[in-house]
């Protein structure tokens, strides 16, 4: 499985690490998605985000996504890094990089990976505002 790199880190994420991992002689394109911390939600100022994970299962679920990306989009290499802990505005929460022979598949695979990560991977995010905090998506 050395074509798949999945990591959960309690440290700054580095885009170049993901990009370098997916570099491949057979690649015609590399798509990289970088998810960052926005400064507001519905008009309320965000002070920071706090991420936590059920790490062994989160890694397993991220590997499943990476494997699907390889199988369905013929991706050559896939790298997915997610950060946990306390993040300030503008910091990187997640990076997904995919290399494929042709560019269209790279875009599609990258979008599938981030969309699915948000649905299935056991990671939770708390938004901390100036006057309170909320677990994102917890309530309907």
């Amino acid at each position: 499985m050395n074509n798949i790199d999945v990591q959960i880190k309690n440290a700054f994420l580095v885009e170049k690490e993901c990009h370098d991992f997916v570099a491949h002689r057979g690649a015609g394109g590399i798509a990289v998605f970088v998810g960052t911390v926005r400064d507001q939600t519905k008009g309320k100022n965000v002070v920071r985000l706090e991420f936590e994970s059920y790490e062994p299962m989160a890694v397993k679920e991220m590997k499943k996504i990476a494997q699907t990306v390889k199988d369905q989009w013929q991706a050559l290499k896939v790298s997915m890094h997610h950060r946990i802990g306390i993040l300030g505005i503008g910091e990187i929460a997640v990076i997904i990089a995919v290399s494929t022979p042709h560019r269209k598949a790279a875009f599609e695979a990258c979008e599938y990976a981030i969309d699915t990560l948000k649905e299935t991977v056991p990671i939770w995010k708390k938004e901390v505002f100036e006057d309170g905090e909320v677990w994102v998506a917890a309530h309907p």
Partner: protein
Amino acid sequence: MKVNILAFGIARDILGKSEADVELRDGNTIEELKQMLLQKHPKFADLASLSFAVNEEYRKDDFHLSEGDEVVIIPPVSGG
């Protein structure tokens, strides 16, 4: 039988702790555990979804639990 429960995110806030041992009858399913939790902590009913994982895999409500299983309460995830 005894199962070990872990709770993350808002589930931990509702449970009041991150871990608990729960005594269930042999052969009980996730559904029975869920009802037990809802009865003790009605706030679980307010969540947008309430899923469970057993030994690091998502399992449906009719899944039979076994002694020593690690069961994780999974409130709506929000990674990314």
